[in-house]
């Protein structure tokens, strides 16, 4: 009885230990991503005066529910000088799948984060999850795009509110939000 379940329950493993999530007010680290051909791309070459880093997925139903809204955000704010960096850190979603998904759903590029190094650096845990940095690389907003996966039920557009405040030189009122989402599927690392 003592170990009755242990053997049978070993099928699921990998206790996930997450790095501390980057907190508003802290500085953006530089990092390297891979384009979907596998070429390295430095974050410093992608960032702008305001940069939105978004962790996305191909299979997560929540992330996919936001595809239309992410396209709209990209369209609405790119013209205002905001830069967007979309990242897929899921070990379960290879570059070819990410490329195919992006072509079918997005008007922007998605970069791959092999071995979830960037997700660990940011302490990102969910898809979709956004981090917004100002021109000095300081994190000004972290969390959800808005408050409902169902667009018709949205009452607070927290990412848009943060971007609008930053573009008009004002402080972001709500710097951090949470929402139910899929975990980022990390590479199983032996410790």
């Amino acid at each position, binding site marked *: *009885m003592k170990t*009755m*379940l*242990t053997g*049978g*329950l*070993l*099928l*699921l*493993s*990998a*206790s*996930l230990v*997450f790095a501390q*999530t980057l907190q508003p007010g802290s500085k953006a680290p530089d990092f390297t991503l891979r384009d979907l051909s596998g070429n390295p791309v430095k974050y410093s070459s992608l960032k702008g005066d305001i940069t939105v880093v978004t962790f996305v997925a191909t*299979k997560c*139903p*929540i992330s996919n529910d936001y595809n239309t809204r992410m396209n709209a955000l990209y369209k609405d704010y790119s013209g205002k000088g905001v830069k967007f960096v979309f990242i897929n850190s899921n070990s379960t979603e290879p570059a070819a799948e990410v490329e195919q998904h992006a072509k079918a759903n997005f008007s922007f590029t998605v970069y791959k984060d092999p071995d979830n190094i960037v997700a660990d650096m940011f302490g990102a*845990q*969910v898809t979709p*999850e956004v981090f917004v940095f100002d021109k000095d690389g300081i994190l000004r907003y972290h*969390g*959800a795009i808005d*408050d409902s*996966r*169902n667009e018709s*039920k949205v009452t607070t557009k927290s990412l848009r509110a943060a971007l609008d405040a930053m573009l008009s030189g004002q402080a972001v009122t709500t710097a951090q*939000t*949470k*929402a*139910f*989402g*899929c*975990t*980022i599927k*990390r590479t199983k690392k032996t410790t």
Partner: protein
Amino acid sequence: MKRLAFAFLLTSAALWPAGPARLDPLDEAGFRQLLAASKGKVLLVNFWATWCAPCREEMPLLVKLEAAYRARGFRLVTVSADEPEDARQALEFLQKVGVPQPAYIKRAANDDKFITAVDAKWSGALPALFLYDKSGRKVRSFIGEADFKLLETEIRKLL
């Protein structure tokens, strides 16, 4: 013949997972009441959703854990993070797997506040398991796919 049929019914009832009859709504206040009412038991709260594949995969294993340790004072409580329109699908899944009653579905006005009330460090990522000792103190959180060997060890320590 009658006796045989009765024995068959009894066996079927014992083997067939009954599952919860309904999903009770749960907000921040309800969650605090749940913790208070569970004192004296080792409690594992499982946050899950029908759209979360790893949540569905680990549910039968959680049910096995509960069955193995229930007599020693262990309880599993599930909280679905599904939207109201998916409540029926969530209930059907729990019934199919044989998850014990009570089972809940979150009905908080604000998900952000609800998530923070459960654990300030939790982002809302699913699956998420929170383990409480008999005094109602949270002793361990498992975010993402759980290490069931570790989970069982922790439960045994608390019983």
